[in-house]
């Protein structure tokens, strides 16, 4: 193959204060190739790409496009050199249509005419096989549609070098496959594609070459065809890691939480939960899979008593009294006292559960401030607890008096999960507990959840990485559009099977239910 260099980085460094986000990185990108940038969280992948895209300016080193040294000080400069980046968090104006977002910021001197824009957008879409309605408003779009808009936005500006920051994190397996097909078509069209990811199997199936970063440094760039997952992981982490999650067989299972016909209507009058039925058992991890925003959050909040369901029952089998209690009659405080714990890790990590400006001890106290009869709060016990959690979960912090917001994302999540586990729950609900964590921290959290399961806790785990769900969970409930589209065995289910269930429409679930109903009637 005749390779021409599209972009070159020479000895590029970027410092944030005294911390080196990137140190003397060399990188070469050819025309017509897909280069995967692989590395753990915080290893500087995104920073490096941001320097090409003009978000950051390198402190040292050179960037060459087509052999010419260039200065990229802003995204506009990047576009001038035909470089475009699709960020992980979409940079779109929700209230605008797809076409308006696509032309945003272009000042080509031509008259502003949305009709022409629509036509050109369609033309680009057809060329690479996208499906898009240029007039649709962003806030009415699904995640994958928004991503399509982002990609077309870059192509519309004539980009030849495309950078995608973790594009598959929010997609279902089917959508991922579609995206990969499109990316391959672009590569064959001569475009250079840089893709940031930490999913190894995607790297292997898509890329031509892989560049591995570790702690801000470039470790190596290898041909994808001549490498394997073990080698890549070793380069990424710097040591051999076992990527297997320990999954012991559930023991002494007992029905702990019985949810039946649960529905919930949100403030806009839309049914976000519809006839949800499932059972969570002690000593078992129940995974919940689904496209983001299918009702996972609402389901957990309803169980925790934070939302009032429109109908249905949530029965809790109390192991202490051996009686069943309806959680719907109880306040969130009473539900917590029963041992049903919600450790919710929302999108912004600190939004729910922890107060960013308070230190670890104060955050521990959020759960215990009502204890005791003294006029003043007791800080001694929360302090002990904080010390214990820091020790046991290996949280790296200067001390218990450090505000939580100063900790890194992984450590914040450990504080949150640690606090909920410390309360000796009987039901532990964790939503996206590993979101944004690197490989090592993620496995620490998985092991914590497994340890809880072995102690007889009913664990409900909402996850987004299907690879992890099928390795960690005993059973997996799939939610689509606020309905349960299936409950599968975690040991036998495949990702594809779950992916199909995730994208089912209401009508499909409906007809399937009916079919099952009639089958049962016949039997």
């Amino acid at each position, binding site marked *: 193959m005749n390779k021409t260099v599209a972009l070159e980085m020479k000895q590029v460094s970027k410092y944030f204060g005294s911390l080196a986000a990137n140190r003397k990185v060399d990188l070469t990108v050819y025309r017509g190739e897909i280069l995967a940038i692989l590395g753990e969280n915080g290893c500087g992948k995104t920073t490096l790409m941001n320097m090409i895209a003009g978000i950051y300016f390198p402190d040292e080193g050179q960037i060459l496009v087509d052999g010419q040294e260039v200065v990229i000080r802003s995204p506009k400069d990047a576009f001038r050199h035909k470089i475009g980046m699709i960020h992980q*968090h979409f940079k*779109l104006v929700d*209230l605008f249509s797809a076409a308006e977002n696509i*032309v945003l*910021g272009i000042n080509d001197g031509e008259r502003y005419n949305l009709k022409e824009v629509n036509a050109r957008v369609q033309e680009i879409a057809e060329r690479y096989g996208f499906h898009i309605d240029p007039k649709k408003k962003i806030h009415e779009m699904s995640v994958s549609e928004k991503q399509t808009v982002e990609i077309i936005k870059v192509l519309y500006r004539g980009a030849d070098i495309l950078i995608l920051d973790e594009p598959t994190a929010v997609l279902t397996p089917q959508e991922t496959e579609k995206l990969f097909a499109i990316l391959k078509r672009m590569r064959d069209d001569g475009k250079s594609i840089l893709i940031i990811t930490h999913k190894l199997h995607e790297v292997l199936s898509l890329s031509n070459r892989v560049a591995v970063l570790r702690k801000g440094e470039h470790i190596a760039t290898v041909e994808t065809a001549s490498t394997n997952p073990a080698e890549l992981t070793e380069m990424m982490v710097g040591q051999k890691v076992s990527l297997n999650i320990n999954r012991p067989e559930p023991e002494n299972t007992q029905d702990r939480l019985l949810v039946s016909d649960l529905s919930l209507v949100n403030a806009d009058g839309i049914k976000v939960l519809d006839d949800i039925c499932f059972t969570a058992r002690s000593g078992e991890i129940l995974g919940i899979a689904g496209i983001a925003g299918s009702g996972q959050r609402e389901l957990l909040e309803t169980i925790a008593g934070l939302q009032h369901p429109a109908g249905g029952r949530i029965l809790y089998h109390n192991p202490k009294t051996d009686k069943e209690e309806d959680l719907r009659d109880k306040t969130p405080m009473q539900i917590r006292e029963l041992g049903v714990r919600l450790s919710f890790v929302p999108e912004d990590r600190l939004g729910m559960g922890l107060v960013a400006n308070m230190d670890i001890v104060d955050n521990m106290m959020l759960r215990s401030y009502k204890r005791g009869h003294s006029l003043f709060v007791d800080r001694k016990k929360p302090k002990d607890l904080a010390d214990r959690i820091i020790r046991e979960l290996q949280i790296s912090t200067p001390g218990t008096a450090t505000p939580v917001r100063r900790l890194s994302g992984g450590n914040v999540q450990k504080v949150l999960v640690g606090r909920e586990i410390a309360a000796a729950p009987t039901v532990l609900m964790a939503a996206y507990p590993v979101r944004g964590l690197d490989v090592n921290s993620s496995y620490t959290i998985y092991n914590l959840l497994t340890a809880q399961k072995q102690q007889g806790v009913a664990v409900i785990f909402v996850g987004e990485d299907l690879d992890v769900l099928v390795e960690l969970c005993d059973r997996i409930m799939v939610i689509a559009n606020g309905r349960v589209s299936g409950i599968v065995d975690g040991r036998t289910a495949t990702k594809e099977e779950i992916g199909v269930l995730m994208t089912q429409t209401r009508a499909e679930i409906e007809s399937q239910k009916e079919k099952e109903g009639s089958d049962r009637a016949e039997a």
Partner: protein
Amino acid sequence: MNGWINYLFNAIALGMTFLYGSVGEILTEKAGHLNLGIPGIMCMGGAGGCIALQLMYRSGIPPMLIVIISILAAFLSGVLMGAIYSFLTVTLHANQNVTGLAMTTFGVGMMKFIISKIRPLQYMYALDYFRFPFSDRTDSLKYWGVMVYLAVVVAIVASLVLSRTRVGLHLRAVGENPATADAVGINVTAYKYGATCIGSGIAALGGLFYIMDYSGSPEAYLNIEPFGWLAIALVIFALWRPYLSFFGSMIFGALFVAGSFIPGLLGLTLPMSATPLLEMLPYVVTILVLIITSIRKKRENQPPASLGQSYFREER
């Protein structure tokens, strides 16, 4: 029937005070900045215009030029206030509410000081000039001077710019999601400064209009501040759309002067103490509109998403 026509003309004329203020505020808010300094800015507009008039007193400059120069002076006073506000909130990231309130306190006080130092005759002489092209008429048409028409033109232009041009698209993007606008290469700071300064300039015209065109009384300047607050309320009433604010301003005008016209027109006698109650009507209507739009919760009718928030580039 003449009474009703008078009422209508008066309502529309007063409404233009609000229209200047609210169109100015809409432009500012579209850039994501809540400028509570509008009352002060309108006051300063009045003061700036009056200073210009005093300087041109008995100078022999043609009346039309006097009007244009004083309008420009009012506009520039507003731009100056807007520039101070922008520097504090955009560049220094100061809290927008506090800065705005400070601008109002400053503007109101400064204007009272300035105008009380000018002898009324030295600016009131131009009252008739502002009535062109109808300076010679004696009928209802004389209610409206050139600034009424200017207000309508400004509102229409603002509306077109926001909805039909690239500049408008970029400005709306800055107010909705500055990080996105920044990422596609729009100069967020320039748009914020531009929209705030031009918006303040437009709002400032409202003050001059009220003193020289609508009221024509030497005490008029004492009344500008409450109209500034009404203009801000009108922005919500108009759902951040200049053309709706055009109709809204007329409704507000009609409601505001209802107390002095309606009882007479209907042959009612109301006690004097009822007038302030009637003057509350625009605020009551604003609250009703707020309730209705909150219930309907349509995305298009909400304030710009980044309104009131400072934009830091490095924060992602």
